[in-house]
């Protein structure tokens, strides 16, 4: 059995034994239950509101889309928080408790440790996001018969964002303590979040400086840009036109930005491998 597979299985077992899976599953179920219930009680008002506005060309679908995107926005935040929480303690925790020592002296590459853990987290995040995101989409579809446009590319972009945050967290965890890593990640997330709003404002008011500030923040960490692109893919055409909504954006990140985010993940991974490979344990 290759060392990557051994560490992959060990990490999944750890998530199960240390009750991470159980807690994530229970909280995810609670989230979906609340979303379902909320949508159920909102549905009559949404339908009435949509029918009233129907005369100006806004359909029920546009309203359903708005509610759906609010749900996916929450799923997106939960996913990246999950990515950061899974990875923040994984390398640093094993270094500080010393459990890594008996592992790292074995005839394996240190990169196998990093890569095995990464793979396990990637699988866990995929499962978590599939459960929550499809839970939200199904909830709207079952109750209102509405499906958003482009759900597959949209969810893939959301998944990419969770992977980006998780990989960057592992890079931090390869050298910093769990707390410092967490501080770094949420600090960066804050930058991206704020930058996204500045850019949205700039785009709305045609202020190029504000747009540039947003682009720079996306280059520092392209997580928010991935969400904006995902939201654009899944937003109903009319809501796209309306532009200013907390869950979508008038300034749509380009394909180039998505490619940049892919490179960002790759570089984060290389930093994690390099830095953990060289550090004293």
């Amino acid at each position, binding site marked *: 059995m290759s060392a990557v597979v*051994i560490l992959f299985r*060990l990490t999944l077992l750890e998530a199960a034994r*240390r009750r991470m899976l159980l807690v994530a599953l229970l909280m995810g179920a609670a989230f979906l239950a609340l979303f379902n219930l909320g949508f159920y009680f909102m549905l009559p008002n949404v339908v009435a509101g949509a029918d009233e506005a129907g005369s100006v060309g806004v359909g029920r679908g546009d309203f359903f889309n708005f509610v759906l995107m609010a749900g996916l926005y929450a799923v997106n935040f939960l996913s990246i928080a999950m990515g950061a929480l899974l990875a923040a303690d994984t390398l640093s925790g094993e270094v500080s408790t010393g459990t890594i020592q*008996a592992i790292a*002296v074995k*005839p394996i590459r240190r990169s196998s440790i990093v890569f095995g853990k990464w793979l396990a987290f990637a699988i866990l995040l995929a499962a978590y996001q599939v459960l929550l995101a499809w839970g939200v989409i199904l909830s709207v579809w079952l109750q209102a018969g509405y499906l958003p446009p482009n759900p597959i590319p949209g969810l893939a972009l959301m998944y990419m964002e969770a992977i980006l945050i998780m990989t960057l967290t592992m890079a931090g965890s390869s050298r910093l303590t769990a707390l410092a890593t967490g501080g770094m990640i949420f600090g960066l997330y804050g930058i991206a979040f704020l930058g996204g709003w500045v850019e949205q404002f700039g785009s709305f008011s045609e202020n190029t400086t504000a747009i540039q500030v947003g682009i720079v923040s996306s280059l520092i960490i392209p997580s928010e840009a991935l969400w904006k692109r995902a939201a654009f893919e899944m937003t109903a055409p009319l809501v796209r036109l309306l532009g200013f909504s907390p869950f979508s954006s008038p300034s749509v990140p380009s394909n180039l930005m998505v490619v940049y985010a892919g490179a960002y993940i790759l570089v984060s991974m290389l930093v994690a491998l390099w830095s953990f490979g060289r550090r004293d344990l």
Partner: protein
Amino acid sequence: MSTALAIDTDRLRKLYGDSVAVRALSLQVAQGEAFGFLGPNGAGKTTSIKMLLSLVEPSGGTARVLGAPLGDRETRRRIGFLPEHFRFHDWLSGDEFLTLHGRLHGLDGGDLRRRVGALLERVGLAGHGGKPLKAYSKGMLQRVGLAQAMINDPELIILDEPTSGLDPVGRLLVRDVIRELRQRGTTVFINSHLLSEVEITCDRVAFLKRGEVIHAAPVKDLHLEATRVTLRAGNLTEAVKLGLAAYGEVLRRDGELVLLSIASSKVLPEMTRFLVERGVDVYALTPHQPSLEELFIQIVGMEGGL
């Protein structure tokens, strides 16, 4: 084989920023030897071991372990290691823990299963393999850690404070295991400040102080060095008392009793002849062999560790 070295280091050095953890470690351990690595806390014992195991990258110097340069991955297949504090993934059961470490060594299948069972029994944990490590006592953790270090039937086993958590029964077991390993030709490297353990189990010891080996010798020779002798004799003239100074330092004189510090018990026959030839009535000549504890203080000094 007797001349091959399991460990050979030359001025191995580790700096953390400005502070020196290991100054210049030069050490030779022969294959098949049981070697004790002694020193006060903070002398650099654990850092030295970590460099040998490529957990820590040296700042300078060179070393070969089992004939290969540091960091050679294939060589680690032939090394076993019990870390200090024996912290392991405590959400695994004893069986799972040993299986994991066996797999990391590339073992698998029925061979590994049999080996896990045999080792649990060897360290006195038969019947405890299904329990999570969380439920193990400190002594049980150390035993399962020792089994982990033997999972690959290593040529070189490095034990960092192997008996620190154990009660007398556990220590006896570790001693037995070490004796067995030696009989099979395994090189045993023990890092310890429990000197009585090292005295019983090791062939040779090195004393480390401030990251340097300040003394290395076979255990049996340590007792020949620096010894004290009490002489009880009648008819001790002043000339004889002065003559005794040639054999050692007279520490105290009280009538018929003289306490001498001698450099080695090798001088005793010569000293006896001298006394008899001078017509001294020798009633008793009693060497007091210092324990390793006393030697440790003599060699390392009283400052102790930090």
